[in-house]
C-alpha cells in the first residue's frame, strides 16, 4: 500500500483531525486495550493483536490514536502491521476461509482445492466477496497435517478435502 496520491494524504489528515477532536467512536475501547497492556510501547505487537481481535482488522483511525497515546511514530506501527501476516488493514468478510498450503497439504493436492474454492466464491486468494460473505486467504500450515488437505472456515476445521466437497462445505456459511 503506497500512499502517494494527494487524495489519500487528505484522508490521513482528516483521520488525524477526527481523532484529535474526539470524533473517533472507539476511544474508550482503545484506552481499555492500552491499559490492559500497561501502556507499554514494547507491547505494541500484543496491543495490535488485541485491536484486531476486537475489530477483525486494524482500523486506521484507531491506529493513529494508539500512535498518539503511546508516543510511537505511525511508521513504526505501520511497519509492524504490514510485516506480520496476522494483521489486516482492511475489514474481513463474515466467514474467513483459511486454506492450508503447508507441505503436507501441498503434497496431497491443496492447489486443486484452492482452485475449487476460487471457482465457488468467485474471489481469488487475499480477496473478500462483494457481499462480505467470505474472505479467502491461504496460510502455511494449520498444524494438523494428518488431516491434509485442510482448511478452516471461521473456527471450524474441515479436513481430508476433495475438490468435489467444497460446494457442500461452503454452502452452509451465510
Amino acid at each position, binding site marked *: 500500500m503506497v500512499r502517494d496520491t494527494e487524495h489519500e494524504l487528505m484522508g490521513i489528515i482528516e483521520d488525524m483531525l477526527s481523532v484529535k477532536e474526539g470524533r473517533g467512536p472507539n476511544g474508550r475501547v482503545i484506552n481499555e486495550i492500552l491499559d490492559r497492556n500497561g501502556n507499554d510501547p514494547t507491547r505494541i505487537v500484543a496491543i495490535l493483536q488485541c485491536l484486531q481481535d476486537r475489530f477483525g482488522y486494524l482500523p486506521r483511525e484507531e491506529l493513529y490514536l494508539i500512535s498518539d497515546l503511546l508516543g510511537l511514530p505511525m511508521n513504526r506501527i505501520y511497519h509492524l502491521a504490514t510485516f506480520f501476516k496476522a494483521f489486516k488493514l482492511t475489514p474481513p468478510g463474515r466467514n474467513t476461509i483459511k486454506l492450508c498450503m503447508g507441505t503436507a497439504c501441498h503434497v496431497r493436492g491443496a492447489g486443486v482445492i484452492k482452485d475449487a474454492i476460487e471457482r465457488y466464491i468467485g474471489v481469488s486468494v487475499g480477496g473478500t466477496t462483494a457481499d462480505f460473505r467470505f474472505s479467502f486467504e491461504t496460510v*502455511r500450515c494449520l498444524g*494438523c497435517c494428518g488431516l491434509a488437505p485442510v482448511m478452516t472456515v471461521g473456527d471450524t476445521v474441515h479436513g481430508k478435502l476433495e475438490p468435489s466437497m467444497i460446494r457442500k462445505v461452503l454452502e452452509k456459511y451465510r
Partner: protein
Amino acid sequence: MKRLLYRDPVTKKRIVHEQELPFLRKQQRVVFGDNTRIRPDDITDYIAIGGYQALRIVLEDWTPVKVINAIIRSGLRGRGGGGFPTGIKWRSARKAKQKEKYVICNADEGDPGAFMDRSICEGNPHRIIEGMIIGAYAVGAEKGYIYVRKEYPLAVETLSTAISQARDCGFLGGNILGSGMMFDITISRGAGAFICGESTALMASLEGRVGEPRAKYIHTVEKGLYDRPTVLNNVETWANVPHIISKGVEWFTSMGTGDVKSDPWGGSMGTKVFSLVGNVNNTGLVEVPMGMTLREIIFDIGGGIPNGRKFKAVQTGGPSGGCLPESMLDLPVDFDRLTEAGSMMGSGGMIVMDENTCMVDMARYFIDFLKDESCGKCLPCREGLRAILEVLTRITEGEGKRGDIKLLEEISRTVADTSLCALGGSAPNPVLSTIRYFRDEYVAHIRDKSCPGGTCRALVHYRVIPEACTGCTACAKVCPVDCISGEKRAVHAIDETRCVKCGACYSVCRFNAIER
C-alpha cells in the same frame, strides 16, 4: 469384536494391544509419551507422575554448575533445528557478566508440515515449564518468555493455565520451593511470521520491534533480549531437561548415536520427535531414538506408501531442508548424517512423497514459501530467492532453457554463502538437494518438456484411453468445469481446450482409463 480390531495393512493380522501396533512398537516416547497419561490442565496429574521432582532435586542439592555439566555430558542438542549443544549455550550465558538474564522458550513452530511443539505445549505444558525453571536456575535468570505461534490458540490457553497453576503451587514466583530463587514466565503470542523462529528475530519481536534478524557477531547468550544475556531453546529441548535430571545422564546417553563424552558435538543423543506426514499410511507424530534409519521410520512405523504407489523422496528439516531419494533410505537419522546428505534435522518435519510428486514443483513450492517469509532485510535472501523462484517457475511452466540448472546452482550458492541469518543460509537446500538427487527430473522438464510426476499443469495432458473406458460417467460427474463429454456406457472424451488439469478425473477413474 474381532472385526473392530486394527488390522495390520502388511501382515493382515488383527492386533489386540495398543503397544503391538506397528506404528507404536518401534517408537520410544520419552518426550511426549506422558501426553496420554495426564490432563494438561491439571497440575496434580503432572505431579502424580513424578513431575517437578527434577526441579526439587536441583534446588535442594545441585549447584547451577552441576546442572550445566549434566546437560553438557548428556549431549543434548537443540531440537529446533540448529543442533547446538544446549549445555554449552547455558554455560556461556552463565559466564556472561550482566546481572539480569532471560530464558526463552521458542514455540513459534512455523515449519509447514510439523506440529511436534504444538503437541507438547497442548499435551504436557508443565514439562516445558519445569525445564525452563531448571534452565533459569542454571544460568541465573529471573524472567522467562514463551513465544507461541499465533496459529496455536489452544497452546496459549493451556500454557497460561499451567503457568498460573505452577505459580499457585510455588514453582514460579518469588522464593521457589523455599529456595529463595525467583523466576516467572510470560507468554507472548506471535503474529504470523516464519522468520520469528530465528532467535534474534524472535527477540526483536518480543521487544515490540519488527521481527528482523541481526548479524550474530555477538551471540545472544551475551547480548540477546534487551541486550541482556539470553538463553533461547526450543520446546522439545526444554521438555527433555527434567528427564535428564531425574533419570540421569547415563539413561539419556543410552539412546542415540556417536560419542559425546569428550565432545558435545560428537553425537546425537536421546530421542527426536518427527512429524511424519505426506504420502504415507500412518501419519502423525513419531518419537524415535536418534540413529534409526529413514526406512524404519517410513516403512515400519509409517506403514509405507498408500495406494500401492512407489516411494520417491522424503523431505526432512522443514522448508529449508532437503529432499532425500530412495538410495538414502538407510541413512541413520541424526544431526550430522542428515547435514552430510545435504538435508538437515530441522525441527523434525518429515514429509514423504510418492511417485506422483514432481520434485521440481516441490523445490518451487519451498522457495515460494521462503520467498514470502524472507524478512527482506538482507539482499541475497530477498532478491536471490526471488530469482531462484523465477527460474523454477519457468521450468515448471515448460519454458526452461539450457543452462538453467547451472544458473540455479550458482544463485543458490551465493544466497547460502552471503545471507545474514539461517533462513537465507539454508533456503537453497531444497533446490540444491533436488538437483543433486533428482537431476533427471529437471532435465525432463527442460529438455523434453515433460513432468514425470505429473503435477506441473503446463506439461501435463489428460486423455481418455478409449479401450479402457467403460462409460461409467464417474469422471464427467467430478469434472469441475464440465469438459468431459460422453453418453452412459460409451467412451468419454476430454475437451483439452477447457480442461483445467485438476486431476479429479484421473483420481476417480476405477478402470485406469485416463492417462496423463
